[in-house]
């Protein structure tokens, strides 16, 4: 009966987990009658990469308002692509939606707003901001002359809001000219009157009698096309089939400027205008047909790119890292409860969910690698995801050997925290970025970066196990001698692993540097950070070999490893010097400081005299006991 229970519960939990995962994967249909899912898959070139409009919608919203969905004034939730479609095809509808996050009270005052005006007290619409944009521009000019790092919070907030407004406006001018009503009608007018207009302008230049209206009309077209060609953001007109450079995409306005050569309009421009026409006139069937036709046309020429945008759109909607985050939390809680009741049933359930989360994360990372054509770690965001993944795998290995749910709890904790960090890093925009020239080397990204990042993972696992040791020991009676011994064994093994990987990774980095800059070691902050991790792990090992520290000492040293690793990971980026200083913000600094303090707190706990540890106090007055979460009993 007991055996059956220990078997059925984990299976049931796993089934629940799989059902949850499946629900995140089911295709969903935003936009009602309009096939906006298909529209979102249409490609554009932005920041050097062909990506679906869906990604543009999501990253723009994250950047502007730090969340992906939009709430309409009547309380309806809009998917990113629904908001995007309104913005590009009927901007009047979008301008009332509150998508600009403003937190700084002085910026609110500048825009004559109070927090009561905003959605959630923090998000405001373009209509609300429009009236005082001139005031904002004045402040931007004042702040613009100050170096980015030296700006006050107000100045940074002003620059940020202005940047967001600019992106918003640029998106509006990306697919059509929002100031000229129905763009399809505009284009038809242009094409029909092209010959007459050109003739009129020629005659005008030659000083002959001409149709003044036709000349004025075509010159007006030229001005408007040029304007949207300069101001629009997205490159949405692909080069024709067989073009020498498949990445030579154009903006709608740029493409229209070339139409002045022969009066012919690129089919892609017409397709976008047609979709806009259908959307504005409430013709979903036409809209869907237009999208489908355009898609088929592109698939014939750009099959591979289209396959990628399809997958990317589904990847966006499924949000696998969010799913894993939920699963990590569940695994952590189950592991903790397993120490209190039903160790076998709950412990196995925890491992089952953790394994599921590991599979989902692996799939997510693999998809990103395929989309980007790169090794797993290319920027801070992907490093956060990868560190979590590496830690979880290490913990699963430990769990295989020790089977007491402690590694699973550690994995749940690290997995959740790293994905949370990743989420906050993703607020700065598209996380699939192009690699700067110096980093453009798949070989070294695959070796040095990956290995060093696994070294980070291992150090964090050792630190998390150290924290669990101290928390269990100080606050509970669960840290019995065999459990403590097992934990020490785990930490030692992981520290060995961390030493190996951080050392090899650091040295490979040195070799890369020697290959690209002619110096093996340049004392760059990131290099120094990696070196500090290696030295710290070496200290732990030598302390243990020399008998300088006992169990608690090793745990405290392992937790201090968290501080050093987090410094190396993020702190060095704060300095703003060196070759590795890429994107990180002030609020990040506060979080990093908070994290380091929390680790010091645990070290302080760990340094309490053993008399104050509940586990050690009770050890003397207690007979032999079952081991924590012991599943072999």
């Amino acid at each position: 009966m007991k055996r059956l229970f220990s078997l059925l519960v984990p299976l049931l939990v796993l089934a629940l987990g799989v059902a949850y995962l499946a629900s995140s994967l089911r295709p969903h249909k935003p936009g009602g009658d309009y096939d906006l899912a298909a529209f979102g898959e249409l490609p554009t070139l932005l920041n050097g990469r062909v990506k679906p409009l869906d990604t543009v919608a999501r990253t723009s919203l994250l950047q502007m308002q730090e969340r992906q969905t939009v709430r309409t004034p009547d309380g309806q939730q809009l998917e990113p692509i629904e908001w995007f479609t309104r913005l590009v095809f009927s901007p009047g509808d979008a301008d009332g939606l509150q998508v600009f996050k403003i937190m700084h009270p002085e910026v609110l005052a500048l825009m004559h707003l109070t927090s009561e005006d905003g959605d959630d007290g923090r998000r405001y619409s373009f209509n609300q901001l429009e009236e005082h944009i001139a005031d904002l521009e004045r402040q931007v000019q004042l702040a613009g002359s100050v170096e980015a790092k030296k700006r006050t919070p107000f100045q940074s907030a002003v620059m940020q809001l202005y940047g967001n407004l600019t992106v918003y406006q640029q998106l509006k001018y990306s697919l059509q000219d929002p100031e000229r009503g129905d763009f399809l009608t505009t284009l038809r007018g242009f094409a029909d009157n092209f010959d007459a207009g050109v003739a009129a302008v020629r005659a005008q230049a030659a000083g002959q009698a001409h149709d003044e209206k036709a000349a004025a009309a075509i010159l007006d077209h030229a001005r408007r096309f040029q304007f949207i060609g300069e101001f629009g953001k997205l490159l949405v007109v692909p080069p024709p089939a067989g073009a020498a450079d498949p990445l030579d995409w154009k903006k709608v306005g740029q493409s229209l400027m070339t139409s002045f050569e022969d009066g012919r309009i690129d089919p892609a421009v017409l397709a976008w205008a047609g979709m806009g026409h259908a959307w504005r006139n409430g013709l979903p069937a036409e809209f869907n047909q237009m999208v489908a036709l355009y898609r088929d046309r592109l698939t014939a020429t750009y099959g591979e790119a289209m396959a990628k945008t399809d997958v990317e759109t589904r990847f966006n909607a499924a949000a696998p890292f969010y799913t894993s985050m939920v699963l990590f939390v569940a695994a952590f809680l189950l592991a903790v409860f397993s120490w209190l009741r039903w160790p076998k049933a709950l412990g196995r359930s925890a491992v089952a969910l953790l394994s599921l989360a590991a599979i989902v994360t692996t799939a997510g990372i693999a998809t990103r690698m395929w989309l980007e054509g790169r090794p797993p770690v290319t920027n801070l965001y992907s490093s956060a995801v990868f560190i979590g993944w590496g830690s979880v795998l290490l913990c699963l290995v430990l769990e295989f050997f020790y089977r007491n749910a402690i590694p699973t709890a550690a994995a749940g904790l690290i997995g959740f925290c790293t994905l949370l960090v990743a989420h906050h890093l993703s607020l700065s925009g598209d996380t699939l970025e192009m690699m700067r020239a110096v980093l453009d080397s798949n070989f070294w990204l695959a070796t040095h970066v990956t290995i060093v990042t696994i070294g980070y993972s291992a150090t964090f696992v050792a630190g998390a196990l150290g924290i669990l040791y101290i928390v269990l020991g100080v606050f509970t009676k669960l840290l019995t001698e065999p459990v403590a011994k097992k934990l020490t064994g785990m930490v030692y093994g992981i520290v060995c692993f961390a030493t190996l990987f951080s050392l090899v990774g650091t040295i490979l980095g040195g070799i890369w540097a020697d290959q690209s800059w002619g110096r093996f070691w340049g004392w760059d902050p990131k290099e120094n950070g990696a070196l500090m991790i290696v030295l710290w792990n070496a200290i732990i090992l030598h302390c243990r070999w020399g008998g300088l520290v006992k169990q608690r000492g090793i745990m405290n040293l392992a937790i201090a490893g968290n501080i050093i690793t987090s410094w190396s990971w993020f702190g060095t980026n704060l300095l703003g010097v060196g070759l590795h200083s890429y994107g990180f913000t002030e609020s990040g600094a506060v979080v990093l400081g908070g994290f380091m303090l929390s680790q010091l707190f645990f070290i302080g706990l760990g340094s309490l005299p053993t008399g104050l540890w509940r586990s050690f106090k009770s050890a003397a007055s207690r007979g032999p006991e079952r081991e924590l979460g012991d599943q072999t009993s």
Partner: protein
Amino acid sequence: MPFAKHPLVQFFTSLKLTVVLLALSIILVFAATLNQVHLGVWGVQEKWFRSFFVWHDFNGFLVPVFPGGFTIGGLLLVNLVVSHVYRFKMSWKKSGITITHAGLILLLVGELVTALYQEDFQMRMDEGETKRYSESPRIVELAITDITGPDWDQVVVIPPAHIKAPGSVVQHPELPFTVKAHYYYPNSALQMKTQAPNMPESGADKDIGARLAVAPVPLTYKDNERNLPSALIELSGPSGSLGKWLLSPWLIDTQRFDYEGRTYEMALRFKREYKDFSLTLLDFTHDRYPGTDIPKNFSSHLRLVNHVTGEDREVLVYMNNPLRYQGLTFFQQGFDNNDTTTILQVVRNPGWMLPYIACLMLTLGLFVQFGIGLYAFTRKRKARAATTANA
């Protein structure tokens, strides 16, 4: 008393010393990283790593506040070597540690060799330009060239150490006059007198310097800036002063004068190293990702002509793909002038192979050691599982 028991040997073989030294090196590396914001990477290397002590300036008094990289690295080296001589017993079980430590010794020695012998130069070329020399990015020299002969030039180079002290006089057998420095500013700003009425005049009475004002400016440590010194030089023959010249790398043209029927050129320039081959920049390209300013690639298309061997070929230097030639390595470092000027970094490092060997040993050593540990661990587990199963 056997030598191994001597307190000094005991001290140098102790694991405590290892741990203390490792901890000190973490502090050193951390503090130096922070200091880099103000001092730049070169300043930090000189102050923290390539020194025996880190000195701090307390109101003009230099006080050693921390052991420098040479001290800590040196002690670690002694600790490691002495431990292996007196404490460690060779055994298969510890073979991994022995290999790792040997690799570490090699790595430390390699860094020392690099610190002592690595030379760093730059080569800056416009498209179409040919150069036979590279320049130091930091060290300057005073060069006086006798260009009278139609076929060859006679160059006398005076290092700045000889002219740094005001009033110092240099007499050189190849020069018929003495060289006296009135001042030497390690970093300076120049302006036309007419444009900067408030700046002190240069004090020169010859050539362009007579029309210039000069002021010393604080030394910069930023990676993307250079210190550009200025010096007021007076030449004197047996019959008295020939005049005063203002020299500075700010001034692009050399300054020419005649003395006793010979023609000389004089310049304060970045130290040059001439090669027996020349490089010509045929083309520089800077690719960006479409629709962005993110650099995708920089590359310099060069022509290499060796005047001794007659070798003549074209080479392409780009990111992560340097040119290695005659013990020198040419890296794509930067660019200028709207993508028409390339800046190559030229490095000579006789110890460049050492880290590679050290790496292999370190990796191998750790693999072996932890592999042995893991093997023992799994065997113990199996044995334990077997006993519980039998029980």
